[in-house]
């Protein structure tokens, strides 16, 4: 067998590794091994790539490859090891964006190498696809990162003539792409790349902070497709398979996520959520002036210490306050007192689907105390206390009762079915969706204002004394 055949065989094994890894990642039991398998497959594939004579032909190029890989690893490892679990969504956004950028660059360099030889139209089409999708993913992920890192407002950004500008940019890209296809001209491709970067920015700007995680999943899928396009330009099976796997599974995952929010993907991407929100908020009247019942930590401590069943419903406020360890302490204390405790986890609790599970796992909360929404809801009616920690929209009954509310139709955790509801909240400020929560004004509801970590620490002390 020739060297090329051997390498192709190694690539095939790596591709099988990726498929098994994705399968493993979809079940809690095999997830970690799946990821390690994918990492091993990737390492072997990368290692054998250096067996190609073309890679080792020029000492300078080979040296630069090693320098770039070393620099990349030196930046990536500490960044990935030290990132806080709460900052995970923006980290994933960043790693995804750079992947899209890399795929776009591969396509651009292939074009630069082949352009003098008048490449066939289908070759140019492969390059164009990689450049367009890779650039959109790169700049879109950068804006998503900025929104999540709060470098810019998380609210949907709207401006006059937004639709017109979008249409003009899209039309210009189509025109430039056709021009590139016909002429094989390098400056035209460069212009297409620049406008694609602009498209990524204007595509993401109108998407609200709460929807950004779904967007990242979509951009993840885009990067996969851009990588597959690079695979086409390089005639490389491994890139085609790996990129397509991620592209296809990413789109499925994106749809599952938007379903968990009770909305269609199109609605997530194009509705500019925020503009509807203000209208409904106004119609509800200024909720802030209505009376709410607040309690002291001692009152609530007694209430939960002598309850039979307490359901903890964590939300993003818990993550922001880094209170996952304190909430576990409280839960352990209650369990020791004989209270039946479990956590009800909304699929989109936190800042990204599944995020809350990661945070609670970090705090060593046992797996069997976590219940998914569908499993938790039937039990809510038998709960004495629903303890809502830093969550808001995910327990808002408006999702069930108020037709026309922006969150109408989103599945929620039925905290309202519990005998008592306790909200630990920073303020009366509404959640991401920006709408009032009727549940806050319910006679069964008690509020305890403050940073989730502080209030939970006080509750722990109160339960100990109770």
């Amino acid at each position: 067998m020739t060297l090329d055949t051997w390498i192709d065989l190694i690539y095939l094994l790596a591709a099988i590794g990726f498929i098994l890894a994705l399968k493993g990642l979809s079940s809690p039991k095999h997830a970690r091994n799946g990821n390690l398998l994918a990492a091993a497959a990737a390492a072997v594939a990368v290692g054998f790539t250096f067996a190609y004579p073309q890679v080792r032909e020029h000492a300078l190029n080979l040296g630069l490859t090693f320098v770039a890989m070393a620099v990349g690893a030196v930046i990536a490892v500490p960044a990935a090891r030290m990132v806080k679990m709460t900052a995970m969504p923006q980290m994933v956004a960043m790693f995804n964006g750079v992947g899209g950028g890399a795929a776009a660059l591969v396509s651009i360099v292939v074009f630069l190498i082949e352009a003098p030889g008048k490449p066939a139209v289908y070759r140019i089409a492969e390059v164009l696809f990689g450049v367009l999708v890779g650039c959109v993913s790169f700049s879109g992920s950068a804006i998503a990162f900025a929104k999540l890192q709060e470098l810019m407002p998380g609210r949907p950004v709207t401006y006059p003539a937004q639709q017109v500008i979008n249409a003009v940019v899209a039309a210009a890209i189509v025109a430039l792409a056709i021009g590139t296809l016909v002429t094989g001209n390098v400056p035209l491709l460069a212009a297409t790349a620049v406008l694609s970067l602009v498209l990524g920015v204007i595509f993401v700007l109108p998407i609200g902070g709460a929807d950004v995680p779904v967007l990242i999943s979509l951009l993840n899928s885009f990067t996969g497709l851009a990588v597959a396009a690079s695979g086409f330009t390089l005639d490389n099976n491994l890139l085609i398979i790996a990129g397509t796997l991620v592209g296809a599974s990413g789109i499925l995952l994106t749809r599952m996520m938007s379903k968990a929010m009770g909305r269609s993907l199109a609605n997530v991407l194009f509705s500019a959520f925020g503009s509807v929100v203000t209208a409904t908020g106004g119609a509800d009247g200024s909720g802030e002036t209505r009376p709410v019942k607040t309690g002291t930590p001692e009152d609530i401590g007694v209430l939960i210490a002598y309850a039979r069943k307490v359901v903890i419903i964590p939300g993003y406020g818990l993550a922001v306050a880094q209170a996952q360890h304190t909430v576990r302490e409280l839960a352990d204390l209650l369990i020791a007192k004989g209270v039946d405790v479990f956590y009800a986890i909304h699929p989109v609790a936190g800042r990204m689907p599944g995020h809350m599970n990661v945070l609670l796992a970090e705090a060593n909360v046992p797996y069997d105390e976590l219940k998914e929404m569908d499993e938790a809801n039937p039990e809510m009616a038998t709960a004495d206390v629903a303890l809502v920690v830093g969550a808001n929209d995910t327990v808002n009954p408006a999702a069930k009762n108020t037709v026309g509310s922006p969150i109408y139709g989103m599945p929620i955790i039925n905290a309202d079915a519990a005998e008592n509801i306790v909200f630990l909240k920073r303020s009366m400020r509404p959640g991401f969706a920006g709408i009032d929560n009727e549940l806050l004004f319910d006679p069964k509801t008690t509020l305890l204002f403050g940073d989730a970590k502080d209030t939970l620490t006080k509750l722990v002390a109160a339960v100990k004394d109770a």
Partner: protein
Amino acid sequence: MNTGILEFVTIFVLAAFVGNEVIGRVPSILHTPLMSGSNAIHGIVLVGTILIMGSAHGAVQITLAFFAVLLATLNIVGGFVVTDRMLEMFKSKPTERAARSADRDGADPDDGSGDTQ
């Protein structure tokens, strides 16, 4: 070459079906790690960037290829490390978990009581 492209299109189409099938019923608790893990998998574009660097000539191509390798390395290394960090916390069973937490915050007086569930 035209039969060559058909071969690649075949691979593409089949891979798309596999991608769709393979994550069929993923529980929502794993959405974040799955997103992050598949994010790491497309970091395999690193292979493409290494190949392209081998064929690059002249300052422009080499500079672009250099950044391509750098970005792809960030993607693949960061992606796998971050995913492993998340999944490490998912892995252990409740008993090991309790033991480990006792190790970690041994000063915590409530810890022993937490195990009596």
